[in-house]
């Protein structure tokens, strides 16, 4: 795994961007873009990153960026990928769609599924802060069970969609589910994905202080708690080979026990309503167990 000092110093997201203080998504994009490098074209639908780029006439992203409509990340990226193939540059230039969870799980899933089914040569990143963050935290298909959002004031009633596995079923060459609190893993994942041809889906949990309601200084810790309690499972699928990653691998192999779920739920304001309902907590815990069973069968360990 890459060491910190080996990580390139070039920054493809400039300081003074418009993200909230402590934003997990900007940690994620910083290291994803470090791994991909200069020859990258970004396609960004409506999401926090649309705003994070800052105000005309400046842009915080030091790359060519095509801002596109909410529903169209997969489709617009398909157009760019086709254009690059026409120019014969599809090997040297990486196309990456960088979308939020709402733009991926909900409004953009059709375009993404179409692009994957067409074997489009691009990386699709879903940076997942588990709600429509840019518009003030409304519920999305990725919002955790029981979580408060402005459209689920008494807690979400459904469990999040297993988007990673849905994309894996699209028979695409690479899928990875990681977390921005592990920047070295993020770097390695994108450096690996960069050199694979075809559709690559990477989903990255990006802790959101404003949305999940915890102090901005705790973003790294909150992402790690999600993984260490097993509420977020990190894995990858390359070809037919499924693998757990990093801390999730240690948990799956029984080398490290899962921390109690409460460690993850308690410090976040978004679970304020959930924490008052033991039955819902129990349902959440059973869901985490089921997720681990499903993933263990997939990985085959």
């Amino acid at each position, binding site marked *: 795994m890459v060491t*910190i*000092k080996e*990580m390139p*110093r*070039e*920054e493809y*997201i*400039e*300081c*003074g*961007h*418009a*993200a909230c*203080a*402590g*934003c*997990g998504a*900007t*940690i994620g994009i*910083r*290291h994803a873009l470090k791994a991909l490098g200069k020859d990258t074209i970004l396609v960004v639908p409506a999401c926090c990153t649309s705003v994070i*780029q*800052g*105000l*005309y*006439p*400046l*842009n*915080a*992203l*030091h*790359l060519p960026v095509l801002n596109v409509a909410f529903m169209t990340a997969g489709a617009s990226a398909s157009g760019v990928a086709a254009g690059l193939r026409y120019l014969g540059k599809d090997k040297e230039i990486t196309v990456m769609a960088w979308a939020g969870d709402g733009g991926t799980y909900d409004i953009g899933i059709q375009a993404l599924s179409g692009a994957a089914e067409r074997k489009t040569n691009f990386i699709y990143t879903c940076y997942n802060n588990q709600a429509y963050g840019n518009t003030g935290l409304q519920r999305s298909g990725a919002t955790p069970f029981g979580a408060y959002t402005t459209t689920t004031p008494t807690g979400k009633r459904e469990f999040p969609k297993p988007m990673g596995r849905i994309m894996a079923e699209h028979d695409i060459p690479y899928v990875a589910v990681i977390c921005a609190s592990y*920047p*070295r893993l993020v770097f390695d994942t994108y450096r690996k994905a960069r050199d694979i041809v075809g559709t690559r889906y990477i989903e990255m949990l990006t802790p959101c*202080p404003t949305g999940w309601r915890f*102090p*901005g*200084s*705790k*973003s*790294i*810790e909150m992402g790690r708690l999600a993984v260490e309690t097993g509420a977020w499972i990190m894995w990858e699928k390359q070809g037919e080979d499924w693998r757990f990653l990093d801390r999730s691998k240690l948990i799956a192999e029984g080398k490290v026990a899962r921390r109690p779920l409460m460690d993850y739920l308690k410090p976040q304001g978004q679970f304020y309503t959930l924490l008052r309902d033991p039955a819902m907590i129990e349902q959440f815990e059973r869901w985490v167990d089921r997720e681990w069973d499903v993933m263990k069968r997939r990985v085959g360990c």
Partner: protein
Amino acid sequence: MTPMQRKPPEKRQTCITYPAPGSMGHTGDWRIFRPVVDRTKCTGCQMCWMYCPDAAITIDDEGKPVINLEYCKGCMICAENCPAKAINQIRETEAAQPPQPKPAAKRRKE
């Protein structure tokens, strides 16, 4: 190939923008708390550099972090995650002098 016209913003015919720091202004004004590096305690591990969401930390030639106070938002992730507890937090209003931004080391030829 006609060169891309880098016209002044008001004269541009399309909503094109160019990369630059400070796309949201001097975000350093947002700080309520300010990180201060204790260089004696710092072991040069660069964890702060890695975790900074704003790429506002650069590493100087002694391998120690330099915080760009013009843009640092004071989120304190660096302080929170410093293994050596070498970064302290002080209230912005109590900071000795107004923030003199030490321009970030030139990362690439502009």
